[in-house]
Structures are given as C-alpha cells and as structure tokens.
C-alpha cells in the first residue's frame, strides 16, 4: 500500500513541477514577446513610419531567407546560414587564438608579481580601445580583409580572458598553494596540477565575456571589410534599394541576437561540465 501511495505522490509531484516550469518560465516570455510584436505592429500602422512591421518582415523574407538558409547564388549572394557560418568561422579562429594566448599569458603574468606590475598599465589602456579602432591598423598590417577581421576578434576578446586568468591565478586559495609548497610541487607540474585547474572558473568567466564581445565585434568588422558574413550581409542589404531590404536587415538582426545567445549558453554549458561545483 505504502509503495503505491508513494509512487502516486511522486507522479503528482513531477506533474506539478512541469506545470511550475511552464507557468513560470515559458508563458511569461511568450506573453512579453507577443506584446512586443503587437506594439511594433501598431507603431508601423503609422504611414510616416518607414520601417516594416513584424508581419511584413516575415512575409517579405519568407522566401528565400527563412525557408532556405543555405541557398547559394554565387559571389556574396548566399543564404543567411552561410553568412552566419562564415562569421562563426572567423569568430572561432580569432577567439581560439585569443583563448590560447590569453590563458597562457594570463597564467604567466598572474604568477609573477613583477611582470604583472609591469604590464598591467598596458593591459588597462589597450582593453579600453574599441574593437573597430583596431581595424585600420590590422588592415594596414595584413593587407587582406579576412585576417584583419580575425585579428579584430582576437584583440577584442583577448582582454577579458587575459584579465580574468590573471585574477584567477592571483586569487588561488592559499590552501592550495600551501599544499603545493608542502608537497614541493614546482615548475611546470605546479602550473599544470594546481594553478591551471584552480584558475579554470575564472578562465571560463573570461571566455564567456570574450565570446560575447567577439560576436559584437564581428558584425561591425564585417560591415567594413566586406566579403561573406552576417555583417556584410546587413551592410549590403542597406546599400541596395530593393523593396525588401529593411526586412532582410531586421531578420539578420534577429539571427545575430539568437546566435550570440547560443554562443554564450554554449560556453556556460561547457563551464558547468568542466568546473567542479565546489569551485564556483
């Protein structure tokens, strides 16, 4: 008897949990989005308003942009899927470079007080330079569009990674350092066994900020350097005077936002898997 009663309550609990999630986490955002779209649509009813409303946007971009993200008409006339993948490729390259360099440098600088004091002012100045300000220099240096864009990603995302890694190394709990000192862990083994794992939570914070910044920067950079990519797509759409260009831009913006969100969640997900609960 008891067992049966037990399962019944468990089932009931599960159902009520699901209900809770739906009522708290799903319904309110849906309502908010609906209200947002209605306000947008209402604003666009005004004839002086040049921007398309939501219904117009979707109907104008339905074919081919929404239903066929991977069409390829040659040159830069490609589906949004291709555009985004291209941008992601650049971000991936630049961000990976930034992550490797940032973490390595960060550990070295964080472990060395003198070095930290020496380079900290430089880092503080350089990190405030807006991403696009790097573009002329990188264009001059690389003479090519693609490497320049990658460099901008690199230089934008390296600072949060570097700074967070430095802080992480500096904030290693004294306990871990004591353990290492007693066991006489030294040199590379000390970095590999203690410093790196202890810094991982900070590194991931840096990576998360870094990926967000790179995605911000890539759109702007691509607008200027051209080629295939979501940024250039927006800029090209703006420069053509077709009926549907504004709807294309709005759609691209939505995609940019969604991809940015996904990137952020992806890094957060990896962090959850890698960082042990006690260290957070």
């Amino acid at each position, binding site marked *: 008897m008891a067992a049966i009663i037990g399962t019944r309550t468990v089932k009931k609990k599960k159902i009520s949990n699901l209900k809770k999630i739906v009522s708290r986490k799903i319904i309110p955002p849906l309502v908010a989005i609906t209200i947002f779209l209605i306000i947008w649509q209402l604003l666009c009813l005004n004839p002086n308003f040049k921007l398309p409303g939501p219904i117009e946007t979707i109907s104008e971009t339905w074919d081919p942009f929404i239903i066929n993200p991977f069409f390829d008409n040659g040159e830069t006339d490609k589906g949004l899927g291709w555009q985004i993948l291209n941008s992601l490729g650049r971000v991936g390259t630049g961000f990976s470079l930034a992550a490797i360099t940032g973490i390595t440098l960060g550990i070295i600088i964080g472990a060395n007080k003198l070095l930290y004091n020496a380079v900290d002012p430089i880092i503080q100045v350089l990190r405030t330079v807006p991403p696009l300000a790097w573009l002329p220099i990188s264009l001059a240096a690389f003479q090519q569009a693609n490497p320049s864009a990658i460099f901008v990603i690199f230089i934008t995302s390296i600072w949060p990674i570097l700074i967070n890694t430095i802080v992480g190394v500096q904030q290693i709990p004294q306990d871990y350092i004591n353990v290492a000192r*007693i066991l006489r862990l030294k040199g590379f083994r000390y970095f590999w066994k203690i410093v790196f794992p*202890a810094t991982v939570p900070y590194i991931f914070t840096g990576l998360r900020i870094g990926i967000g910044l790179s995605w911000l920067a890539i759109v702007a950079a691509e607008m200027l350097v051209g080629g295939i990519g979501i940024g250039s797509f927006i800029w090209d759409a703006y420069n053509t005077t077709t009926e549907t260009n504004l709807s294309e831009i709005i759609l691209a913006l939505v995609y940019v936002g969604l991809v940015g969100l996904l990137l952020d969640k992806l890094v957060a997900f990896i962090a959850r898997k890698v960082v042990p609960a006690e260290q957070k």
Partner: protein
Amino acid sequence: MKTFVEVDHVDRVFDIPNGGKYIALKNIELKIRQGEFISLLGHSGCGKSTLLNIIAGLDKATVGGVTLEGREVKEPGPDRMVVFQNYSLLPWLTVRENIALAVDEVFKDKPKGERRSIVEEHIDMVGLRHAAKKRPSELSGGMKQRVAIARALAIRPKLLLLDEPFGALDALTRGSLQEQLMKICNQHNVTCVMVTHDVDEALFLSDRIVMLTNGPEAHIGQILEVPIPRPRQRLEVVNHPSYYRLRNEMIYFLNQQKLLKKRKAAQIPASTLTVSGTLEKIHLEIGFMPLTDAAPLIVAKEKGFFANYGLETVILNRADNWTEIATGVAAGKLDAAQMLAGMPLALTLGAGGKTPIPVVNALNLSRNSNAITLSKKLYSEGVRTPEKLKATIKAYPDRILTLGIAHPTAMQNLILRYWLAAGGIDPDRDISLAVIPPTQMVKQLKAGIIDGYCAGEPWNYLAVRENAGFVAATALEIWPGQPKKVLGVREDWAQKHPKTYVALVKALLEACKYCDDLRNREEIVELICRPQYLDIDPACVRPGFIAPYDRGDGMPPQNLTTYHQFYLHQTNCPNRTELLWMVTQMARWGLVPFPKNWVEVIERVCRTDVFGAAARDLGLLDIEQDDPIHLFDGKVFNPSQPIEYLQSLEIKRQIRIEEVFI
C-alpha cells in the same frame, strides 16, 4: 630524552599597516620527543596556528628557528605534512586523485604499482573505499577530513601537524575521527603537533598539552603532562584519577587568559608604543635603599642616563627601611622605586593582610650580592653548613638563635629560609627570625642581639671587617643568578605613563650595562659612597665589588666576579619562572596564600613587554632566560606544576591555595 623537534626561542613579529609592529609570538621554547603527541591550546588569536605554520615552514620565525632531527626547517616539505582545518583538498580531483597527487609527488622514485597500492591502502585505512571516485564537493566534512588525514599519512611524514583538524565537525564525527587518528598515530608511531581549543580533545589525544597565553607577545604559559596510559579508550579516559584535575586546570588557565585579555584591551600594549613623542612625565621621584646594588640608579642619575632619555629631573629619595619604600610607592609619593625582588609580588598579592596594590616589574636591577652571615660564636662552634647549624641547635636546646632579615618579602628571607629548611631547620620553630633594617644588622650582631642575618652588601662584609661574623654562604652558592633588586612601579602609574616607563627602563638598562663593566667600577664606588647616597667608607664596598671578597672564615679572599651582577648573564629581563618560585616560597612560609590564578598574577606583575620594548630600542636581547632554576640542594622546580612542587617540600607552613582577586 632525545629531542626530535626543537622550537628554539621563536619570535614572530608582524608589520602592521600603520608602520608599527605586532609581536604575535615571543620566546617560544619547546622540545618534542619522537612519537610524542603535543597539543597547542589557547584562545583564538593567540598565535597557535602561526606557531604551527612556523614548524611546518609555511611561515618564518622573525627570531629563532625550528629544527627537525637537528636540521633547520627552512621551507615546507613533505616530512612535515599539515592537516588543515578547512581540509585543503583540491576540488577538481577525486578522493583517490587527491591522495595520489601527494603520493606521486613524494615517492617519485617508487614504481607505479607500489604507489598505487599505497594510495589504496590509505583509502582503506580511513574507510573511504566507497567514495574513492567522488570529488570533495560530494563528501561530508568528516569524510573530507578523513581524506586529508589519509593524504597526510600516505606520504609518511616524520611530523604530522594538525591545525584544528576537527574544529568544523559535529560532535559524533569528531569523536570517531579522534579515535581513528589516535589509532593510526599509535600504530605508526607518528609524532604529532595539534592546534586545538577543545580541552577534551587535547586530553584524549595528547601526551603533553602546551597552553599559550594571549597575544600580543604570546608565550608558553603552562605545560601539562597527561599521564593517562595508552592505548586510551574514550570512555575509560574520563575515569582516570587525573582527568578532571587536568581538565579543570586547562579550563582555569583559559579563563584566566580571558580575564587578562579583557583587562589588556583597556591598556596600550608597550610593544606598539612609538619611541618618539613626548613623555608623559619628566620629573620623577625614585626611592632607593643605601646598598651597593643601588648603583644603577645612582649611575643613571650621575652619568646623565636619565637625562639622555628625556627624564629631566630625577630625585633619588633615600629610604631608611623597606617599609618606607613600599608605602611610598603604594601612596603614590614615589613614581618608582628600587625594590626587593619579591616586593612587587608581595604588594600585588597583599602579603601580610594588606590591601593588594598591583605593582609591576619590568626590570631586574641586580642579581646575587646576598649572603648569609653568622656570628663568630657560631663559627667557633664549627658551623659552616645548615646541617652543622642544626646540630648546634640540637646541642643547645635552651638557646634560641635569632637571625635577622631585612624584610619578609626580601629575597634574603626566602633564601635564608630555604637554606635553613634544606638543612632540616624549621625557620619558624627551631630558630627565631627578626626583621631588622640592614643598617642595624652589624651593630646588633656585634651586640649579640642576633646570631646572624641574611642581607645584601656591604652589610656582610662589614661584619667580617669588624670581626663580628663570617659569611656562611653567598648567593653564588645558594642560587647563582638569583634576582635581588627590581624596579617597581604601580600598575596604574605604568598605565598612565607608558612612554615614561619605557624611557625609565631604558635609562636604567644603560646604567646597568655601565655598572657591569669592571673598568667603571672604581668610578662607581666613588659615586655610590657619596654622602647623599650610601655615605660609607669606600673600603667597605670594594670587596666583592672590585676587590677580592674576604668571607672571614679563615680562607683567603676570593675573586667573586659575578657577585654583583647588573647586566651580564641576562640579569635584567624579569623572569616569570623566578617570580613563580618566589610565590611558592612566600606561600610556603605563609606570607601569602598561593594564588590559584598564579598565571594571571605573574603575567600582571612581570612586564616583559615593557622590558622588551626598551631593550629592542637599545638594540639589546629582549628575551627572558629560560634556564631552570638551579638551587644548591638540587631540587628541580617545574614551573608548570608549582602546587605539586610546594607539596613536595618537607618543611613548610599550612599552605592555602586561594584565588586572588586584584
């Protein structure tokens, strides 16, 4: 006893942000045997963890050092593994990996298979087989600490250091872990030092319990031996006859420390005083008795040491007897005074039924220069030693000998009584003791009113010179290095004039140094014999001071270089062990009840912090001597067990043990 670990005069001084210094630990001296379990007990903030870290090598002593098997500890190492209160496990590693990290690092040379088996063995030892693959975040506090202990033991440390290992655990877990730890320690004969504030834990696990006083300048207040045999069982330990006595003693000690802390919070500690700044008082009146060992005071005034340290006018007030000095200081008429070594204690304890007046001592002015003089008549009866004296007393039962002392609290009284009692003479029943001003002693001895006395110089030599008596024993034979005169001030005066106090101690310390230089002695003899001071023929002062000392016993005069000791052999630092010995002697003869709160009383009277501040400013050694007291009869005085010592003495009065409220 072979010393395994030695903590050798460790000081730890921290720089504080405002530029001052905080002396956390002062003069810690501890020897640990192989296989011994030591607990460090004290209130939080008393520096016990700092001491543990210094032993571990994680922190460095400012002065002194630690040796393990004769080698100096310079850096942390796996031979001194620490178990931390917060476990310090690496959260990204599993239980097995945490232990393996240590084992792999320490036993690099061993083959992999052997290392694996060590790891597995220790996982089993603490019973964590089921959790071997878990990370620390998945474990309870007790399990984590078991992992930490396993990790520590797996690398076979010579010394296991535990920093409040069970502090964060619930009572049940704590109990079972304590038992496990003890079993493992017994099995592997591990030497342990554990920091704790749990008295029962300390009693259950330790061979010796080292109790630290409160910071600043924390030092070892008392060491308790735990005589409970091993192996111990939790339930049986409490039935041991000494369990509750030891437990009470520990709790009493901690309570005393708490009281001291409260009072200290209201005071400005001397160590934080800055040297600069104006003195609170620059016109002082200091009392002295016309004795050879008033030399530091006279020298400080005449040679301008007082003025050098900003004390513009110092009036030296000559007293005729010690009571005058005592009442002068008690009434606040005198700012400070040269006192007999036992006087600050006696005044603080209210000896003789008087109201207790806390008087503190931060400087010993002189040592030795006491002697026991007996009449020529006794000399002709063949008396040389206390045993002989006893024989004479027995031989003439009708005659009652009278011996003179300067003051009941004088070292002379304590020494004379000790000397007599060591010979089997009860100083209150077999003879009579009379308090006589030292200036009268020779006269009365000559007149036959007394048959001898114990006094300072020049009164012993004068009797020899006038052929009235002979010196039966000097301080050098009874207790070489015994404290003689100290600088006493009222505690409230010391609190009101902290900078003046340090300046005064500094001036006198310089003067003491000057006095101990034999090249200056001729000049000093001239100074002290002036009419306003001793007013005496220099010839009476010279023997024992600069000239050979004639004892009047037919032997040729001897050169007693340390008879008047003002500076050398760590004369000046007030010493807790000596003070404690004096308290036991005063209690022995019923002058005072033995204070149950003796740690507190001595801590109050003995101002090593003021001495230390002065000595450091002068660039001198600022620690007290820690040699045990060597008395002529060879009896050992263990400063951790004064009551046991008192009870072991044969001739004594009824001893009262009371708490003294000051």
